């Protein structure tokens, strides 16, 4: 992985690439702030972001807490746990995905993973019928969806990633178009349903941070925890994988099965986060880019917690800010989309990240 640091994105940073050629690693541009951050030991960084995350969660739970506390508090707890789960799922899956693809711009959602999940969900509802789906226990439904999702994505991404090295831009474009296709196909299927069936399923299709299915929280938490234990035990292998396929094989990693295992974990995590709050395309990209920015090394033992904590801060803090300061709630995913889109453009135009 190139040693080029990711700088915070602003539109003004968009620079032309010099004389159209492929720029090599950009010379280190000195920035005092960044140097300061990067010379901080990762342990300290983790401690600071962890404290920030805990404080934010505490504020989120207790701010303006009056009236019927027995009613308000559980609702807030549900919301905050959903956000934390999403932070873990999106952060970890994006980091893993980028490690496996040895790349800092690809993320599962940019490659259409979460649109695929929506399609699986809709397809299942279409085939099985709303009545069956509404009466079936949500864990069973979730299980079937996740099985389908993992199966499909394994086929899809095996097809995409096996074979000779391919153009990154082609991969990105194919991923984006696939995402559009999956979304288009799902909305077409939704249109083809009986209107009465569609109404039953509407809540399912419009998951958001304000509309979390509490029934799924427990299962999701268990699944996320299991995946995270697995990932944590693989962390040293992941460090090697990040060096690229050849190096990893050279050092003795059984590349293909490991990659498939990681992609499987990614599919699971994406399915969980999409089921909980719907698709948020650029969140993973934002969080992982920030994580690399704050962390001195490339060890997954440090990166994983940092990325997860930043995700939690971004979600809880962002929601808090929007709800309490600006007074509107659902727009968080739109704002993530906006900032993430700009960051993506910046990374793309910078061109040095391959």
């Amino acid at each position, binding site marked *: 992985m190139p040693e080029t640091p990711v700088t915070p994105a602003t539109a003004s940073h968009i620079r032309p690439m010099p004389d159209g050629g492929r720029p090599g690693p950009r010379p280190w541009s000195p920035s005092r702030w960044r140097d300061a951050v990067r010379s901080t030991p990762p342990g300290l960084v983790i401690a600071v972001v962890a404290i920030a995350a805990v404080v934010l969660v505490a504020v989120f739970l207790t701010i303006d807490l009056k009236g019927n506390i027995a009613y308000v508090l559980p609702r807030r707890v549900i919301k905050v746990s959903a956000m934390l789960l999403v932070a873990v799922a999106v952060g970890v899956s994006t980091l893993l995905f980028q490690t496996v693809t040895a790349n800092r711009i690809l993320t599962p959602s940019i490659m259409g993973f979460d649109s695929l999940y929506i399609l699986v969900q809709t397809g299942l509802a279409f085939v099985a019928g709303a009545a069956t789906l509404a009466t079936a226990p949500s864990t069973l439904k979730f299980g079937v969806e996740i099985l389908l999702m993992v199966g499909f994505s394994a086929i899809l991404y095996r097809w995409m990633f096996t074979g000779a090295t391919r153009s990154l831009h082609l991969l990105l474009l194919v991923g984006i178009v696939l995402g559009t296709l999956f979304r288009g196909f799902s909305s077409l299927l939704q*249109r083809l349903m009986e209107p009465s069936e569609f109404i039953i399923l509407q809540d399912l299709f419009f998951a958001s941070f304000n509309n979390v299915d509490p029934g799924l929280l427990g299962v999701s938490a268990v699944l996320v925890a299991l995946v995270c234990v697995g990932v944590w035990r693989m962390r040293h292998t992941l460090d090697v994988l990040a060096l690229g396929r050849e190096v990893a094989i050279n050092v003795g990693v059984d590349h293909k099965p490991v990659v498939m295992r990681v992609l499987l974990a990614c599919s699971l995590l994406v399915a969980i986060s999409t089921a909980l709050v719907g698709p948020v395309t650029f969140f993973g990209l934002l969080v992982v880019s920030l994580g690399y920015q704050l962390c001195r090394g490339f060890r997954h033992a440090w990166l994983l917690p940092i990325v997860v904590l930043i995700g939690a801060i971004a979600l809880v803090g962002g929601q808090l800010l929007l709800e309490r300061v600006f007074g509107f709630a659902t727009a968080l995913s739109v704002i993530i989309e906006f900032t993430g889109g700009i960051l993506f*453009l910046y990374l793309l135009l910078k061109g040095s990240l391959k």
Partner: protein
Amino acid sequence: MRPTAPASRNRAGETARLVAAAAVVLVIAVGSIFVGVSDVSLPALLANDAGAWEIFWVSRVPRTVAVVLAGMAVAVAGLIMQLMARNRFVEPSTVGTVESATLGILVVTVLAPDSPILTKMVVASVFAVLGTALFLAILRRLPARNTLLIPLVGIMLGGIIAAVTTFFAYRFDLLQTLSNWMIGDFSGVLRGRYELLWIVAVLVLVGLFAADRFTVAGMGQDFTTNLGLNYARTMRLGLMIVSLISAVVVTTVGAVPFLGLVVPNIVSLLFGDNLRRAVPWTALFGAAFVLVCDIIGRTIRFPYEVPVGMVMSVLGAILFLFLLLRKRNA
């Protein structure tokens, strides 16, 4: 790029084939007139059924005309965009033009909700021009050889503009209205409500006559000037045509995704890159494609309708993928 057909192939044969294709499009168009819920059939019309004739003139004919006009115009706009950017994978909905037009409509809906549709169209056009100009400005700084980077940047630019639009639509409770423009749908077309779409017919004609200039302009400023063509003026003309077509189509029937990308590519696969010929073929194929999609949308869930934009986004995305991956296997 495919080699063009040998010059010896005479013009008469070419014209004959174009006329034959136009006849096929006409047949599909007439067919589409007789698709629908209420009873408009040939016997009913011949029996001089007043109700059938009214539906015929008020709903069916305007709808088919609108489909043909929009299909031709969006396909030609895509072709012009591809010539100007010298890139096969751009079109108004992958460079931010359509998204900018939508933002324009939203702005006018918020600031002056009662303004007539013509005002909306003008504002949408202004926004479309600005958005496309922004893309072209970014394009100038990109390495021209990188075919896939350019559509990626365009799609992202469109995504960012769309995020801004969604944000404000959410703030002003206009999300539902917004989907009218984001998803193309011909079911609302009635006599008296689509006539502004004729503007695009004029724009297509202008594009037809200026097509070879855009090819030259796509070669770059120096090359263009060398051939004695005013580069800036040609680019401005192309920019105006593409933006106006997009804005007019988005305000009257909504966005028709991928059409401008897919059709010119298919035409180029079939007939090579001879521009003078490509424009009429692109227009015909565009019309035929949207006609077929509209008929699919009207029959797939009969008697309900599926908006043509949804059908297009599925079919168009599949064809786009095919075009992207085609080279790989070759």
